């Protein structure tokens, strides 16, 4: 079975079966958040897992998508179309800033991307005439139930959102898996492991990095647009430094090398805080401790560790 087909089948099956565990709309909401996070993390897998670049500013792209969706309808662009406009905007911004900053390495790249995220955050909080300032703005809602009603299915809004996001995630993961096993993806992985060797084979290292950066920005932007539509409200928090860190952490915790890691990382870090509410004021301590423990015990992330467990089981 090709890796793409396998990913498609596994992820689709998981997403189809998951609702069996959802007793209420609240669980669907968590499900939707997991899926939206999975989407931005998948983009990060392309960036970190494929070409090996660290970004601490991806929330900036996420917010570009979210605010495109929030702001543009007032200028006559239909909400659905804003997802596309946001994605194109994020791609252009990524291309523009990526050129100079992707020359930087390691921690220098980290601080440059972090600075980018901060700048987006600042613009969103200070330009209140456009963005509503730190308190955010309302997003024009869309009727997500319509397509289902067309098929004669009566469905709650949150559940409709779950299926829409599930489709988006499956598409996102299939695209990323396709990429991994394609000429362009091979070039990315080659750059990751040795940029001198990659260059000696004619691979334009800067361009390859930029391509991955743009792709990951588009993923984040689409995820941002979806969250804005789903929440019907956006605030500059979407661009917050801590949100960037969150995307990064999900990626690494899940295992940056595979798209499965994206789903696992997003699932754990989205649902964990919900479970930890029972610890009340110890919540943060628990959360931090779990993060440390997971990374110490499973350096490559959860997905590879789980895969290893399975293959051992098979033997």
């Amino acid at each position, binding site marked *: 079975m090709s890796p793409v087909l396998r990913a498609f089948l596994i992820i689709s099956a998981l997403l189809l079966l998951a609702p069996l565990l959802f007793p209420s709309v609240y669980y669907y909401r968590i499900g939707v958040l997991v899926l939206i996070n999975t989407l931005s993390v998948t983009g990060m897998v392309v960036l970190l897992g494929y070409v090996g670049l660290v970004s601490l500013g991806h929330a900036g792209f996420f917010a570009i998508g979210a605010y495109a969706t929030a702001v543009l309808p007032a200028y006559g662009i239909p909400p659905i179309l804003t997802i596309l406009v946001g994605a194109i905007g994020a791609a252009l911004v990524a291309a523009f800033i990526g050129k100079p*900053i992707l020359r930087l390495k390691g921690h220098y790249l980290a601080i*440059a991307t972090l600075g980018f995220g901060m*700048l987006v955050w*600042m613009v969103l909080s200070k330009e209140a005439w456009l963005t509503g300032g730190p308190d955010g703005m309302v997003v024009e809602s869309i009727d997500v139930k319509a397509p289902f009603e067309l098929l004669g299915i009566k469905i709650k809004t949150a559940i409709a959102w779950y299926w829409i996001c599930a489709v988006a995630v499956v598409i996102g993961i299939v695209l990323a898996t396709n990429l991994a096993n394609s000429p362009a993806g091979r070039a990315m992985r080659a750059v990751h492991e040795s940029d001198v060797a990659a260059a000696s084979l004619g691979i334009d290292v800067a361009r390859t990095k930029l391509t991955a950066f743009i792709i990951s920005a588009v993923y984040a932007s689409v995820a941002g647009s979806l969250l804005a539509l789903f929440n019907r409200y956006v605030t500059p928090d979407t661009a917050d430094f801590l949100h960037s860190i969150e995307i990064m952490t999900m990626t690494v915790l899940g295992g940056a090398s595979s798209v499965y890691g994206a789903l696992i990382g997003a699932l754990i870090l989205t649902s964990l805080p919900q479970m930890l509410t029972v610890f009340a*004021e110890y919540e943060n301590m628990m959360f*931090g401790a779990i993060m440390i423990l997971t990374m110490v015990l499973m350096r490559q992330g959860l997905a590879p560790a789980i895969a290893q467990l399975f293959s051992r089981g098979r033997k």
Partner: protein
Amino acid sequence: MSEFVQFCFSGLTVGAIYASVALGFTLIYNASGVINFSQGEFVVIGGMTTAVLIASGVPIWLAAPIAIIAAVIAGMTLYKLAIEPARGAPLVTLIIITIGASIFLRGLMQTVFDKQIHRYEGFSGEQSIAIFGAALLPQSIWILGGSLVVFVLLVWFLSRTKAGNAIRATSSDILAAKLAGINTNSTMMLAFALSAATGALAGVLATPVTFTSYDAGVLMALKGFAAMMLGGVGSPAGALIGGILIGLIEAFTAGYISSDYKDAAAFLVIFLVLFFMPGGLFGMVRVERV
């Protein structure tokens, strides 16, 4: 004139705090190649512990050392429980571990102390000193002096002492350092302890000016990190200059351009510097051997 001097004072005070945090980053980076994102929490441990002790009647000369010792214990525990077991893990994994540690420490302080904002009186009173028509708080002098002393001690330590040489050797080639008989584990533990002490000292000195609360470390780490990158990773001089530059840029932007975008200005300068000097002001870009 008096405005200019006033902006300088503001920039130097704030910049010196960033510099102290950046120096703590530098120490750990030099020993282990890790950027310790929980460095900001060391600063808070220093400030919070001192504040709480002073509030319960302990004099500052006793409270400060206790606070620094508390931070050192936290730093060593962090190394022992989280960094050492993960040695050899990919760099991003280590970054995530230190981020986890920072969340953990924040949670810990929130339960051990509280969520209130704390401060205590400046060491030499609160009466500002007039210089060239500008007002300087005596505590600012303490802060500036503190960061300079830490800088000098750090340079001396790294270049003149056996332990410092061990740290530098460990960072440049851990295997070679091991072969040369350096106990790399205890060397790194030492780096974490010293870095925690540096951070806590910054917290002790800065709290009368900056105030402190359990979650103040995030911003500290952010600015300190930015300062180190501006100066060039791993260079003590870079950390010092980088921190002070960022403080000055913020103050002058707030004073002469717009207070709305003073943080943005700092980051724009970092972008520009990195564009022309990809290794920061004092950093070196390593040439890869192939």
